[in-house]
């Protein structure tokens, strides 16, 4: 498949520090693609190379089939929304939005038309004469978005666009972004360190660490089938136990785990060899806790009430901890700190990890 944005063996070093290390990603037209990773993983540098603010040390960037690796930022068909929004403080909202169009020397009538269209789309019409200092955080975010969108870029780049917003506004804005992206049919590439945000908005996610891409896939793929313990733990929570001797019955595996202090179950559908070192990973929401029955025995050490769910931390007999999450369905809580419980899960709830 021909990618719309294609990043080919891209590397960037600053002195001895390699910020981006031989990264290759293909992004399709109309995708909402996330670069996800902790701070310092190189995701922003990668985005800045796509925008043209950083020159790659090696590798190439192609946009819509055209090589743009050496094209300066001002001649690339990309627009960026900056983390700080970078609104021009000396210009009104309207002039901020019109800035790029005026730079392209479009006719005045067309500029006015396009500014008012995008302002309407983002509910900025009433604010066009204000200065950026007079706006709230959410309004500024929308102005920054409008200013980038109004140029109708082939690719919109968003660098931590929601980092400065409070949680409720963030969630709302995430949905708004997805709606806009669908409506306009544009290709969005977003940089974020918030895994929840990446999962909510993206069609696909690239998980980065120390300049390398660890995994690329849809939110469900990377959540359900992480390639490593790091990815499993970075995307949500995961209980991970090192596996040992394995018995198989059909597609189900019973794995002896010294770390967990007993047998744990997993499904054999993963193509992970159980000969070398491997791990079993299970998400807290898939763990069932019961007062009696089969499973790993342990004592509830911590409990926290998180509204939508109840979170338990169980100290297993082996000394390891296990997290379990019970969705709050309104039932009475029958477990409390100090209780002895047995933890179990369905084999298909757990995955095997080779790294």
């Amino acid at each position, binding site marked *: 498949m021909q990618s719309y944005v294609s990043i080919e063996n891209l590397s960037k070093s600053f002195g001895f520090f390699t910020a981006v290390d031989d990264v290759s990603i293909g992004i399709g037209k109309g995708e909402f693609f996330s670069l996800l990773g902790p701070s310092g993983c190189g995701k922003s540098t990668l985005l800045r190379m796509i*925008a043209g603010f950083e020159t790659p040390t090696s590798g190439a960037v192609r946009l819509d089939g055209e090589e743009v690796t050496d094209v300066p*930022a*001002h001649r690339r068909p990309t627009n960026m929304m900056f983390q700080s929004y970078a609104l*021009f403080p000396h210009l009104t909202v309207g002039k901020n939005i019109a800035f*790029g169009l005026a*730079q392209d020397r479009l006719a005045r009538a067309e500029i006015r038309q396009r500014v008012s269209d995008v302002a309407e789309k983002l509910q900025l019409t009433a604010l066009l004469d204000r200065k*950026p*200092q007079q706006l709230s955080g959410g309004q500024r975010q929308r102005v920054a978005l409008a200013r980038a969108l109004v140029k109708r870029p082939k690719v919109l780049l968003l660098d931590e666009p929601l980092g400065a917003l409070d949680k409720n506004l963030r969630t709302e804005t995430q949905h708004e972004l997805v709606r806009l992206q669908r409506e306009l049919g544009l290709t969005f590439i977003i940089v974020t360190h918030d895994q929840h945000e990446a999962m909510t908005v993206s069609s696909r996610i690239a998980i980065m660490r120390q300049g390398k891409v660890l995994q690329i896939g849809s939110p469900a793929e990377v959540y359900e089938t992480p390639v490593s313990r790091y990815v499993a733990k970075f995307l949500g929570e995961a209980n991970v136990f090192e596996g040992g001797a394995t018995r198989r019955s059909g597609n189900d595996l019973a794995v002896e785990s010294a770390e967990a202090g007993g047998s744990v179950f997993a499904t054999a559908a993963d193509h992970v060899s159980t000969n070398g070192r491997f791990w079993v990973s299970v998400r807290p929401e898939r763990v069932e806790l019961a007062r009696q029955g089969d499973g790993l025995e342990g004592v509830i050490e911590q409990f926290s009430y998180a509204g939508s769910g109840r979170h338990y931390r169980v100290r297993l007999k082996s000394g390891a901890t296990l997290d379990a999450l019970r969705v709050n369905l309104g039932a009475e809580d029958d477990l409390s700190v100090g209780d002895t419980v047995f933890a179990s899960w369905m084999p298909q709830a757990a995955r095997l990890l080779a790294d």
Partner: protein
Amino acid sequence: MPKPSWFNRLSIFAGLAFLYLPIVVLVVYSFNASRLVTVWGGFSTQWYTAAISNQSIVEGAKISFLVAAISATLATVLGSLAAIVAVRIRRFRGHHVFNGMLVAPMVMPEVVMGVSMLLMFVTLGIDRGPVTITLAHATFTMCFAAVVMQSRLVELDPSLEEAARDLGCPPFVAFMKVAVPNMLPAFVSAWLLSFTLSLDDLVISSFTTGPGASTLPMKIYSQIKFGVTPEVNAISTLILGVVVFGLVASRIVSRPSAKSSLAV
């Protein structure tokens, strides 16, 4: 906030009196009708009239203002360029030395600067006069201008220019369209500061002047040699007014910029 104790109040009062009482006395006596400087003879503005009709004083003032305006302009341009290098390019070879050298003239003894500049002008065979004073003033006020510009540039979000480039401006156009308008208050502030510093300089002017080119402070100083006259008080009060205006204006101009940079 706790209320200041009587000791606090007293020390503030004593400190302010120490700093400003001589100036108050100067201003008050500039309105003295008496010819004797220390004897109050009633209110009068006659010394102001005398001062502004004194040909020599007016001549000195003209030179001073001209020198201050031109040297402040030079200092602001050069200081801005230095500040841009120091803030934007930052990590070049020898940037520590560069930053140090940029601010060193602030603490360099004026006498040393004066002598060195005199020597340079003599060596180069440049006739001393208003031009050499202007050059010398531009040199010693440049560091102040650079510091003012530097503090503004540090506050200026570098992604502003990147945003402009992203929207289609080549780098230089982005700088002119986005960075320069946002540095405007700092330009004005740096210019006013340089202007004020140049206006009241005596030492460096004395070293770098030539025949027939006496600035206002030099004129005042030479008059003092024959005793303090109320006329000197009047001129000094006028200079004080200009300096206070310059400082206040420079603060007012630079204040909104601080606010907007916070908002960004």
